[in-house]
């Protein structure tokens, strides 16, 4: 019997619920932690970034209009599906990050738990961040947090799965939609995560994943007038100042890259990451009419 040939996977982008190749037709070589060939991944261009923003904008009314309860359920569902693909993700994390098998299992476990943790915040954040404000008049006065809109995320460069989940889940749990620029040298877990998202109940366009060169694509996202916030967590420090400057053009919310390098993502969920993409709406309502 002849030996079976393995079927290599084409790693593509994830835009608007579909898996297109880059419109530019380009791809790049992804290697493992020991610089051995792993796969070819799609090399996103600025036009892919543009398409991703259009898809994210289109998905925003539906996703932000869904009930908090529903969004929580959807995030929980992502965790369920990740659990089913546990082994695949362990293998990918080992290949991408060079972790030991035991460590990789912990990382994947933590990634799954992180979805659950943020899922729980969906209907609680308004209670923590909202308020009934005392005012000196016959009015009720409420402050309620609302999602800011389309958020561009430069994902952490080192932690390809746990880091990615830790920056993505808090954004979409609020009702924001996201365009994620995956880790430049370790994009494969992000591509596989997008396959999970596509088959979970996350509506098309709520999460869009691009793989490619940060330096090439990030400036277009930071300058894009239809993006409401940028998370620069994974942006190289030397690029961050320029990105922040471009983001100022339409007063985007900006989350700067951590000064002391990429954090250890194994800690607790971070409510400030949720707050980062919220706007406060205050409503006055007359009493007694």
């Amino acid at each position, binding site marked *: 019997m002849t030996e079976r040939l393995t079927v290599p996977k084409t790693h593509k982008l994830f835009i608007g619920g579909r898996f297109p190749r880059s419109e530019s037709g380009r791809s790049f070589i992804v290697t493992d932690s020991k610089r051995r060939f792993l796969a070819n991944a799609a090399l996103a261009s600025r036009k892919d970034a*543009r398409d991703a*923003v259009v898809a994210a904008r289109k998905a925003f009314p539906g996703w932000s209009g869904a009930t908090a309860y529903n969004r929580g359920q959807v995030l929980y569902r992502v965790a369920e599906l990740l659990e089913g693909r546990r082994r695949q993700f362990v293998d990918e994390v080992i290949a991408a990050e060079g972790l030991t098998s035991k460590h990789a299992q912990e990382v994947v476990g933590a990634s799954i738990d992180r979805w659950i943790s943020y899922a729980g915040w969906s209907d609680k954040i308004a209670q923590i961040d909202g308020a009934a404000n005392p005012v000196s008049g016959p009015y009720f006065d409420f402050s309620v947090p609302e999602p800011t809109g389309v958020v561009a995320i430069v994902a952490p460069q080192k932690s390809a799965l746990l880091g990615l989940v830790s920056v993505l889940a808090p954004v979409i749990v609020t009702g924001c939609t996201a365009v994620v620029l995956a880790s430049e040298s370790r994009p494969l877990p992000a591509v596989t995560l997008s396959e999970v998202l596509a088959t979970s109940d996350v509506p098309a366009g709520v999460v869009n994943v691009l793989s490619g060169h940060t330096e090439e694509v990030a400036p*277009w996202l930071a*300058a*894009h*007038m*239809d*993006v409401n916030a940028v998370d620069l967590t994974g942006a190289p420090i030397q690029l961050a100042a320029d990105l922040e400057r*471009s983001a100022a*053009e*339409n007063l985007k919310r900006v989350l700067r890259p951590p000064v002391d390098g990429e954090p250890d993502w194994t800690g607790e969920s971070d409510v400030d990451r949720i707050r980062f993409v919220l706007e406060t709406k205050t409503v006055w309502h007359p009493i007694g009419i």
Partner: protein
Amino acid sequence: MTSTPCLARAGLGEVTASDSSLRRFLHGLPGVDEVAAEARAAMLATRSIKADAKQFALELPIRMIDLTTLEGRDTTGKVATLCAKARQPEPSDPDVPPVAAVCVYPDLVSEARRCLEGSGVKVASVATGFPSGRTSLAVKVHDTMDAIDAGADEVDMVIDRAAFFVGRYRQIFDEIRAVKQACGQLHLKVILETGELATYDNVRRASWLAMLAGADFIKTSTGKVSPAATLPVTLVMLEAVRDFRDATGRQVGVKPAGGIRTAKDAIRYLVLVNETAGPDWLDPAWFRFGASSLLNDLLMQRQRMHTGRYAGPDYFTVD
């Protein structure tokens, strides 16, 4: 491909003398190869327009737009807003040219006229029982006169599609002629409502019928029927105006309307015009877009070219 074999032999007068001679002529027009027309339109749509050509291709369609609002809930306020936008599409950039015309219902013509005074932007009015065209000829002419009296520069009439399907070509011919007579020197655009005509052959026949009767423009759609304007339909109409000019010497304009929303779409139409009818038609006098949301996309793409960053709809007026 030429589609005027019998027009050269028979004069215009003979062709239009009766229902049967009109039918003989219109049904004698060569059939449209459906597959080829769609393939050609699709092929031309893949043309890549860059740099200077793109700048031109973003600017020209702005000047070609008939900025349109044809809804039952249109108010004078809505028309005033639209007219302000027509005069100066981008308030922060005076270099952006005004659009060609504003297109409204007859009862709103006077308001549009008032708002556009001195701007050079034309007022177009739909008439003749828009969008179905199911009124008597007397009412159609009266409707047209109403619009003209209120100050319309251009009239967009609809043809009676039912008459077309039962072969009463002469009736349609007479109606267009009567409306054109009412219009006098004013521009008459004849809406074929291609979405209801079902075949490209019918589109070609209706185009010729309208042109023979004196249309200054042939327009695809009312915007009330889906599909509205498509590239292949516009291709067939552009071939018709080209062949009509070859046969008679008179140039007729084309106006696709409905469903054209992005700058990319508009550029595809311009390529189609240039490759089918020729550069003579690349002018607001001979080619128009019936659209409303198209304008914002053109402005956004234009801004993207000038600033080097992608534009967002938050920074343009809502319409």
